């Protein structure tokens, strides 16, 4: 391998790895926010039903 190949391998893995981690992290965060919102809505719906029954 030439020096150029080592430079490409070094920078490629580090920058590529950073990009993959950042993209995966943003997607995980987006999915978690969607799940959290759904759970909150479900909980509010259950609370509303409970309130109607008591009324």
């Amino acid at each position, binding site marked *: *391998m030439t*020096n*150029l190949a*080592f*430079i490409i*391998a*070094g*920078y490629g*893995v*580090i*920058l590529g*790895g*950073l990009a993959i*981690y*950042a993209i995966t*992290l*943003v997607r*995980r*965060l987006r999915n*978690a*926010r969607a*799940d*959290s919102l759904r*759970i909150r809505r479900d*909980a509010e719906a259950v609370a509303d039903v409970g309130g109607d029954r008591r009324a």
Partner: protein
Amino acid sequence: MKTRVVGIIGLLAVIAAVVFGLFVVPPDVNQGDAQRIMYVHVASAWLAYLSFGVTALAGMLYLWKRDLRFDAVALSAAEVGVMFTAFAIWGGMMWAKPVWGTFWQWEDPRLTTTALLLALYVGYLLLRHLTDDPARRATRAAIVGLVAAIDIPIVHFSVVWWRGLHQTATFADPTKILHPSAPLPFVIALVGMLSALTVVWAYLMIRRYQLARIEWQIEEHGRLGRITAAQRAAVASSAIPAIPAAPAATAIDGRVEGAGL
């Protein structure tokens, strides 16, 4: 929105630093173009130190304040730190082969202690999966994070304390990159890459912290849902002696107090 701005600034800064380090800075007299790997290698190593330092500090604050937000910070820093440690090792290997003639040497104290650092914090992340109790998990993780942090100064000073292939410190040694006679383009390239990757590190830390907080809320909601369902099922079946209210309540109390291991 502000976090996104940090991410965009980090991305632009890294692009600029890479272009400068690869195409503007002249090759090193002794090592030629292979020396260009130093910019990402040294920056990754410093960010690994910073991450694990934050993990230890946040763990200490958790043990003091018992606030799970510190545990979220510790987790975020450990995960990001493991990634940067792996990058530092990879970059070092790619630099070592053309310069030393070998990718790795176990007899070198810097290399071996860095590999140990990676193993310790991978273990830290795995340890967190051993229990569902947030307080117990945070306590265990904080202790392991503090113990593992002992390896950080050992890694840093290994090149001073023992002999090996690895060069001595790049920044701490005044005869190297910070020496007035050091060519300015080399200094700019290294400091520029370090600054750019630090901005990216800050962006990743914020995002990982946000994720950790939401994951904890979802986990907590699921646990409370299971306890409620179990209590309802017990009441519905009228099996009063078998109602698991007491163990559930104990579990909740344990989490809130959070002192146990």
